[in-house]
């Protein structure tokens, strides 16, 4: 029984691991922290897995537990950020697919997102993951109106970071 549960969980997580990696990329700055956070999210997901009901989508359920871990449970270790690591965990932009201007803009955007606070990062992440405002509000525990207001503020914040 336990073995079966383990197998079901690991298979699901292996399939949807991108969600966790993307959260780690937004919330951490070096490879070691990325791995640390990934591990903590895995532990929390596994602990919560017995309560997971098949009627919800595994990925939707994952957003909630993984973001809760990143925002609330995870304690950033005070390790210094090694500069050589930053490049391995930052977002890669394929230069050949964009013109120079767009490429530059994207680079700036990813840097700007990293400067946001934890809650704003969660909003941007869920928005980029194509979640509706209803889903965003349910994950964060705020009203839908509030989610929209906050999202607009994030957009303004990003604009001001990009065009100081």
């Amino acid at each position, binding site marked *: 029984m336990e073995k079966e549960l383990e197998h079901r969980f690991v298979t699901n997580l292996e399939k949807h691991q*991108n969600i966790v990696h993307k959260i780690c990329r937004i919330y951490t700055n070096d490879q070691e922290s990325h791995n640390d956070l990934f591990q903590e999210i895995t532990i929390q997901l596994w602990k919560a897995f017995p*309560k997971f009901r098949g009627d919800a989508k595994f990925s939707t359920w994952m957003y909630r537990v993984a973001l809760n871990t990143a925002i609330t449970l995870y304690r950033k270790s005070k390790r210094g950020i090694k500069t050589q690591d930053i490049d391995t965990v930052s977002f890669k932009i394929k230069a050949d697919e964009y013109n120079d201007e767009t490429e530059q803009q994207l680079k700036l955007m990813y840097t700007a997102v990293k400067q946001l606070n934890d809650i704003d990062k969660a909003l941007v992440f869920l928005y980029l993951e194509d979640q509706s405002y209803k889903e965003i509000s349910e994950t964060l525990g705020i009203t839908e109106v509030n989610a929209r207001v906050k999202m607009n503020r994030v957009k303004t914040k990003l604009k001001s970071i990009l065009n100081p």
Partner: protein
Amino acid sequence: MDELDILKQDWKRQEASLPKLSYDDIYKMLWKRSSSIVKWIFIISIIELFLSTLLSIMFADKAYWDEMERLHLINFTYGFYIVSYAITFYFIYKFYRNYRKISTTDDASTLMKNILKTRRTVKIYIAYVLISTGFSAIIISYFSIKNHRATLQVEETAKYTFETIDWIKFIILGLIALAIFLTLIWLFYRLIYGILLRKLKRNYKELSKLEM
């Protein structure tokens, strides 16, 4: 089209550059130890509950009860202990209930609220222990002085005066000790809050900013 939409178009492409963990890599992680703040809050809270309960029963040995008898405080002490045990059990029960409510499958706001609530229970309990310890120390000191004077022989006036000064010294030293003790506890609290809850509090405030 705004900036975020440009980002959204690129977002899907990012998946190609993400690390890929194997089934075995993930399987191994299931058995690693968690270092989440909830675990630390639980450990620290249990230590605090235990230490403060210990503080309230530590002095209650036979000599203490004999002394209370002599000071005619036996009924007060019994009453005090019954009430304080009841209050302690109530706090432990409340802490346990709040702790059980913490669930990562809740929405972010509820999760943060429940963690802060759990911590608050312990904080109030510590405050209660400190206040009640201070309160009983004052009552006992008062009765000690009162009963001591009543049994003194008036013929030894010089000794009596000396004793009064002694009591004043005792009270002043007691107050200084109490102040140091409270400051240390306060610093200890600042430290724990600084380490564990600063980020959580900031995020909770950020999240509930518009929720009026």
